[in-house]
């Protein structure tokens, strides 16, 4: 049941193939009278290297969308294509580190599971930890670190999957503002340096305007793309700059209008 427009356009267009392509994706949770339409015929193309922020009020299916792209769940209908031979890497709101293992053990696990040998693994782990400024904490255990440091370990572990696509589900939602700002800088730097494609879910519109090349606003119940805007503020950006605030205000107005629709 794809729309006639998308069916007519051949895949080999002038643009490069998308890193993540969602085509008419619909997801229904539950069945029968209890069925809830979480995502309704959602179509979204993310070109390689783009940083896309998904924002929306609760119930817009943001997390459902990420689970689908990550392959943890299957769409009820529609197609999802992810470029590359590796499954996309997913990062949660909680760092979800393994408490029995050291920082190096946590970061090394994805490498180990791919069969990378010890000597090479050690080098790669050191690189990944250096990338998140935690080189000297390799032997520590997760509980010895602060919240922000745990998130950086989780980020290093996720980067260790060597996936070109990074999915982030409100990854910094539980952090204090100062730590979050610093992690924004870190993430932006790693994204640029590694040429990643990022799909970043957040309910914080300012965060979206600080980080995204593009902001996609999802409507609630059912989730559809209700508004899209390109963020043209030059990088590096600051979350407190007037340009970022201006973009955020524009998106917030749309978001309020969208939420208000449910009150009527």
């Amino acid at each position: 049941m794809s729309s006639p427009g998308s069916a007519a356009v051949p895949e080999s267009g002038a643009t490069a193939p998308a890193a993540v392509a969602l085509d008419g994706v619909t997801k229904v949770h539950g069945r029968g009278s209890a069925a809830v339409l979480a995502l309704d015929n959602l179509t979204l193309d993310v070109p390689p290297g783009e940083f896309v922020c998904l924002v929306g009020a609760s119930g817009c299916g943001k997390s459902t969308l990420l689970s689908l792209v990550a392959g943890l769940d299957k769409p009820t209908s529609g197609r999802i294509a992810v470029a590359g031979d590796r499954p996309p890497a997913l990062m949660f709101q909680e760092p979800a580190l393994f408490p029995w293992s050291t920082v190096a053990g946590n970061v090394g696990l994805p490498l180990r599971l791919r069969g990378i040998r010890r000597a090479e693994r050690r080098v790669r782990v050191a690189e990944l930890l250096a990338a998140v400024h935690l080189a000297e904490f390799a032997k520590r255990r997760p509980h010895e670190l602060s919240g922000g440091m745990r998130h950086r370990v989780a980020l290093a572990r996720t980067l260790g999957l060597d996936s070109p696509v990074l999915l982030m589900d409100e990854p910094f939602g539980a952090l204090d503002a100062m730590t979050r700002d610093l992690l924004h800088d870190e993430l932006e730097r790693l994204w640029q340096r590694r040429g990643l494609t990022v799909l970043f879910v957040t309910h914080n519109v300012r965060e979206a305007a600080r980080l995204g090349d593009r902001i996609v606003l999802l409507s609630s119940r059912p989730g559809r793309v209700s508004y899209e805007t390109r963020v043209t503020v030059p990088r590096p950006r600051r979350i407190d700059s007037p340009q970022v605030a201006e973009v955020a205000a524009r998106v917030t107005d749309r978001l309020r209008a969208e939420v208000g629709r449910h009150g009527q």
Partner: protein
Amino acid sequence: MANDVAGLRTVAGLARDAGAGTALSGLDALELAARQHDRSRPARLWASAWPKLAALALVVGVWQAFVSARVKPDYVLPGPLAVGAELCDQLHRQQLWQGVALTGRRALVGYAVAVTVGLLLGPAVARVRVLRAALGSMITSLQTMPSIAWFPLAILLFQLNEKAIFFVVVLGAAPSIANGVISGVDYIPPLLLRAGRNVGAHGVSLYRYVIAPAALPAIVAGLKQGWAFAWRSLMAGELLVTSLGHTSLGAQLTYARETRDAEWLLSTMIVILMLGLVVDGVFGAADRAIRSRWGVADQPH
């Protein structure tokens, strides 16, 4: 012109990188500064030892008070000093060490088999739905069964011999160990399983790298409880099955009672208690090591 702007931007970016790195290190240092422990090792040892010594002194004091009050005659309830002298005497004799060796061997063999059974049964019941439906509640009910209640059946099956003791020790300990594994697997936070799958652990590797280490604290608790049951079952068995010779610790208790040698009886009881404490200490150390690795032992010991 465009190149210049891009160049400037890279320089600014690098400067910001360094800035962010420095700021992060500063933040890290600030947040970690409050977490240092500052007590020396002897101080910690003393802090953990003195309450135990005080409790021991209290028990000995109460015991002596009863003896001094002549609640019971001397030959029934001897005082701590007489029992202590008997214990020192026993420590120089073969008989006690033979008892320790025999009882210890039975305990180790029975416990080892119980551990094997528990560690095989536990994961299977925890992860296979049919097995859980069939065996889950049975394991729990086996665990509540006092092991001494198995002895009449064991004696019918195997007569009064080593096998009867072995049977009851294994039956007493294995359900606890299996239950430890099951509850350990049940209480793994789903988030850790998701994280494990997300970093590429599936099937056997999920067990090896996520489920087993995540369940380890509960498994150790189950092993500890299993040991307690094995030790109790063994003592009960040795009290009942005495025809095998006089040397096991349980048999020595029985013979001490039959010969009305209260000093021998009490000193043997002290040996049994000490052995139990030593093994408990080993499990306690394992438990503390795990908790400090996991960071759930922040309160000072």
